[in-house]
């Protein structure tokens, strides 16, 4: 009975805490964009209407050539090591993709995307070299494996219909050395060692066919220190030196040079797919670099000439990088003229498709490798700007008259703006329009839901996206920047009108070890007035950076404090006011630096700084990892609280009306280190809560026999972390909560030097799925309940109330009525995944890598941006929309009732008057 009542209670709480979407809310404030990753292989099908692509994100997809839309898409594996090495279009309308580690051949139907067959080639030793090719009937693999006498070549054939495997032959390769680059043009294998000056050709079916051709015989003269690179395009082999480019056809006699002259500026060549099969190898397309743009030249190999009337120029936008993949399609128009289509992948990870005339579409695949995301406020609307100008400016145009003139002029301006907007149709008088309208102006809305998402991606491309529609507002490719370690800082938001907002990217220079800053205006994307076009080259390398609080003196600019390799602090922007600001607060300024490999944490104090000279002094050092040889340990994550997070309640009210005060240490960070114990190959995870001002370890805990992925979330006074329990083979979520106790040590300010020792509550829960990303929701004032967003391996994002992970949940036997009064659920080991808690419903996001949350101006609402192979944006309301009317609020009904009531009151008044008159006459 007791258990029954408990379960009832749980069900009740479950119903209360899960707030799902309504079906009519689909697409109202969420959007998803699907991507495929940087294109590495692109093949036009025989009609030229579809493009089969294989990408670096290990995705195989079919693109519609006319629109660039994805027809179907398969993520072949989430394993980061696994890559698509080759892609072939088979003659029977199938596509063969070959992935490595583990080597798998998969054949899909092009039009439907359904798997036809797959063959896994399990290998213990990775071959030195593995090349694939297709013949008329078979898919052929050529492997070179080390053997006792040298190297062996193994030829394997897979029938392209059923995938039956046939190991054909093993041949010895006495001439093969490590480091040789080989290309397979079936049946020939062409090999070139970078240091040698001869090409080796062997027929893989016939071991006696080895030929060695000196480069001189091929018409190439190689000077000292010159490298010859070998490339392959379908049945042709190209040899490139710094000044020359030549193309060869392979015959049984050796390499036969094509007599067409190739300019040395040829970047890429491709054999175009041609509609009629006979002309298949007749043409060749080449991409040639010009001063400012590129030229696409079509060569007729039989006639040995450039088809000048077919060839054309190509202009890529400025924010595109250098082309690194070319795929072309040639077709004959009804009037007999040849015309080409190209698909070009560039180093900024975008894919461009176009013809001689123009680029038809571009896919921004850099959005699959997002490094950092910031959501910034938009500038105020022009009406509000005019109000700001009226009251915000300090211009002394005193007196009643002056103010009146100012007021009148600003109101006139507002009237003008309103009429303009009315004419432009930006204001709809009837009803608030559904979100997703594209032509909305880039200005702040009342609830702060309309923002700009700044996205920094791995290829060094910066995007600004509109939260309402997901439209790319502007994009920019960073130049001369090493993209390995980049951070984006918002130094000034657009709240401080009329001061312009400013963002800064901190990166390493690509030419030296020193740091580069790129300063820009987040709304327009224009570089700011710093350095050369916004790039500021620093003469030191940076090991840590910190955004400091702003104030009026710094013109609301958050100074960026940079710590160089010798631990000397620098301030950006290096203005006097910023430095003074830093010096003023230097007594309370501490920084810490962590080396993830050696597990060393160092704390620095800036107390010794003066206005002339900023100085730092090391105050503490911590060595976290074990120094034993049998273990490998490193820091896997360092998490601090969200910088904008506010804690609304200082404690939790218990059932006996006493308060359990939260341990709210603003200087605490969570450091997780993980390693493997070598003799048994067992993983372990250590979690340290470290006060980075004093260097004190507040708390630490350890888990044995656990495996990655590790995810840590830290907010207010609690920490939630996820790991895979190797022993029980399940994902577990652990929850820690820190309390000061029944009394608060210092209610006005927290000092790390006199901090109390916290009481720690902890509990672990089983999570019945695989977590790939984890984040907590943030609200503006911290009043709204906290939810945890969990990105799952199947593409879902679950919104889980923090109450489920409360470490104070008691086991059923120990649960007391007091606990129930406090609203604490009894402990259940396994956490539920109800479908109603999935915020992205059936819009799954493949391979979720991270989730970003920003508060909006509405206390109830937070903005969520999730990215992986796809990107997804939505709103979450952890405590429901308590501060706005629900979107199903019936305006019509309330208006009807109100008018009805007014009418009724008038009628009854009239009737009552009549009646009293009648009665008076009686």
């Amino acid at each position, binding site marked *: 009975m007791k258990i029954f009542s408990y379960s009832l209670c749980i069900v009740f709480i479950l119903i209360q805490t899960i707030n799902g979407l309504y079906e009519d809310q689909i697409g109202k404030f969420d959007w998803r964009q699907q991507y495929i990753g940087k294109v590495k292989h692109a093949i036009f099908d025989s009609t030229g209407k579809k493009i089969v692509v294989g990408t670096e994100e290990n995705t195989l997809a079919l693109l519609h050539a006319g629109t660039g839309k994805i027809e179907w898409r398969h993520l072949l594996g989430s394993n980061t090591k696994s890559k698509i090495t080759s892609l072939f279009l088979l003659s029977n309308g199938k596509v063969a993709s070959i992935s490595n580690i583990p080597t798998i051949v998969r054949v899909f139907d092009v039009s439907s995307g359904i798997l*036809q067959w797959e063959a896994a080639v399990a290998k213990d030793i990775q071959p030195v070299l593995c090349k694939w090719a297709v013949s008329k009937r078979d898919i052929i693999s050529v492997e070179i494996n080390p053997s006792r006498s040298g190297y062996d070549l193994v030829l394997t054939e897979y029938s392209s219909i059923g995938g039956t495997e046939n190991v054909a032959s093993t041949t010895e390769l006495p001439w093969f050395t490590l480091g040789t680059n080989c290309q397979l043009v079936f049946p020939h294998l062409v090999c070139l060692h970078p240091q040698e000056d001869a090409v080796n050709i062997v027929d893989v079916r016939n071991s006696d066919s080895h030929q060695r051709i000196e480069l001189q015989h091929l018409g190439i003269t190689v000077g000292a220190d010159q490298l010859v690179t070998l490339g392959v395009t379908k049945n042709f082999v190209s040899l490139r030196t710094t000044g020359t480019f030549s193309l060869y056809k392979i015959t049984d006699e050796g390499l036969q040079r094509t007599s067409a002259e190739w300019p040395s500026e040829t970047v890429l060549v491709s054999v175009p797919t041609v509609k009629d099969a006979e002309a298949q190898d007749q043409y060749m397309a080449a991409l040639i670099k010009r001063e400012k743009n590129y030229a696409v030249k079509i060569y007729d190999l039989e006639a040995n000439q450039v088809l000048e009337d077919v060839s054309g120029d190509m202009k890529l936008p400025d924010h595109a990088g250098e082309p690194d993949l070319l795929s072309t399609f040639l077709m004959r128009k009804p009037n007999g003229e040849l015309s080409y289509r190209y698909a070009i992948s560039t180093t900024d990870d975008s894919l461009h498709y176009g013809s001689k005339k123009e680029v038809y579409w571009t896919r921004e695949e850099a959005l699959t490798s997002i490094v950092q995301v910031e959501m910034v406020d938009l500038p105020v609307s022009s009406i509000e700007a005019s109000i700001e100008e009226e009251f915000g400016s300090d211009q002394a145009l005193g007196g009643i008259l002056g103010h009146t003139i100012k007021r009148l002029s600003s109101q006139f301006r507002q009237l003008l703006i309103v009429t303009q907007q009315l004419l432009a149709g930006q204001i709809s008088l009837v009803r608030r329009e559904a979100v997703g309208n594209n032509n909305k102006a880039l200005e702040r809305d009342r609830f702060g839901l309309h923002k700009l998402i700044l996205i920094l991606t791995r290829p060094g491309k910066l995007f600004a996206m509109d939260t309402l529609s997901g439209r790319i507002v502007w994009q920019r490719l960073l130049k001369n920047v090493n993209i390995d370690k980049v951070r984006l800082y918002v130094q000034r938001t657009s709240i401080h009108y009329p001061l312009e907002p400013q963002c800064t990217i901190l990166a390493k220079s690509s030419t030296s070890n020193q740091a580069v800053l790129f300063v820009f205006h987040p709304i327009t994307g224009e570089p700011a007035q710093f350095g050369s076009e916004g790039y500021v080259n620093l003469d030191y390398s940076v090991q840590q950076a910190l955004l400091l609080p702003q104030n009026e003196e710094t013109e609301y600019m958050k100074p960026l404090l940079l710590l160089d390799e010798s631990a000397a602090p620098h301030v950006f922007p290096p203005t006097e006011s910023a430095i003074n600001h830093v010096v003023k607060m230097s007594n309370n300024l501490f920084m810490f630096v962590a080396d993830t490999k050696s597990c060393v944490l160092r704390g620095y104090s800036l107390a010794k700084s003066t206005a002339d000279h900023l100085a730092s002094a090391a105050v503490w050092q911590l060595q976290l990892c074990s120094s034993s040889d049998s273990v490998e340990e490193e820091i896997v994550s360092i998490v601090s609280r969200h910088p904008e997070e506010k804690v609304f309640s200082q404690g939790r009210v218990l059932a006996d009306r006493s308060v359990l005060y939260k341990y709210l240490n603003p200087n605490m960070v969570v450091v997780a280190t993980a390693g493997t114990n070598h003799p048994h190959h067992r993983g372990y995870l250590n979690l340290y809560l470290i006060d980075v001002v004093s260097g004190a370890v507040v708390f630490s805990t350890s888990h044995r026999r656990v495996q990655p992925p590790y995810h840590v979330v830290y907010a207010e006074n609690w920490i939630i972390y996820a790991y895979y329990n190797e022993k029980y083979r399940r994902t577990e979520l652990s929850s820690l909560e820190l309390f000061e106790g029944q009394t608060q040590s210092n209610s006005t300010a927290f000092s790390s030097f006199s901090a109390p020792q916290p009481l720690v509550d902890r509990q672990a829960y089983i999570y019945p799925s695989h977590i790939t990303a984890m984040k907590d929701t943030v609200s503006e004032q911290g009043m709204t309940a906290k939810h945890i967003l969990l990105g799952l391996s199947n593409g879902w994002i679950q919104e889980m109330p923090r109450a489920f992970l409360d470490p104070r949940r008691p086991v059923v036997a120990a649960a007391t009525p007091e606990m129930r009064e406090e609203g604490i659920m009894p402990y259940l080991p396994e956490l539920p995944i109800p479908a109603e808690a999935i915020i992205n419903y059936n819009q799954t996001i493949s391979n979720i890598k991270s989730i970003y949350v920003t508060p909006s101006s509405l206390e109830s609402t937070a903005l969520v941006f999730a990215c992986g192979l796809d990107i997804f944006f939505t709103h979450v309301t952890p405590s429901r929309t308590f501060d706005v009317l629900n979107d199903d609020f019936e305006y019509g009904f309330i208006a009807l009732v109100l008018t009805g009531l007014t009418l009724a009151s008038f009628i009854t008044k009239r009737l009552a008057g009549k009646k009293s008159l009648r009665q008076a006459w009686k």
Partner: protein
Amino acid sequence: MKLSVDCTFFSTLIVCLSFSVCVKSNEGETSKEWFKIEGKVQAPDAWAKLNPDWKLHTDVLIDGGEYRAFLRDDASFSVSVPSGSYVVEVFNPSIYYEPVRVDINSKGKFRARRINHVQPSAVSQVTYPLKFKPGMPYRYFQQREQWRVTDLLFSPMVLMMFLPLILIFILPKMMNDPETRKEMENIQMPKYEMPEMSEMLTSLFGGGDAAKKTTKSSGSKQGAVKRK
């Protein structure tokens, strides 16, 4: 009891043996053999007709995507893995499929069982090769409250609007009926107090004059009724 358990284990063992397929061992160097997990996914017929491309949108994840398999035309799948224990999960955004744990030992014996996270050692076997039967469709959305006439009628605002009307229009008519009139005469006092609540209040806050008026008016009303 124990005997029967052993028996079932033995029989599944035979089944497993007959289905286990060793993929390939690389030229005798068998440090790690690879095995093929096989299975088939079923879909509700009516739903599959409406969603002909469901096989394209159904993922087979092994250990949360460590390995992936794809459905063939006949909705079967296979995936090669080294020996070990794996969670095989079939995911379609519309329909729930129960995940299964597959254990493969180093000799290539297969065993499929239900997942029990709370008691990982508990074995509840399911058939191998795997058969994924469709479960409930996912319900991602909350139901909006349907608009019903009763909701409207019993909503406080409507009650507020119509009850006074009823009182005003219908009650006087009922008064015409002599029997009810008699009844009403007995209980009329509180009925007639009702509309004068406001006056009562004004008298409370106003002063003596108002109070007198109240008594007067109430008296006159009583009289009026009697005269009728």
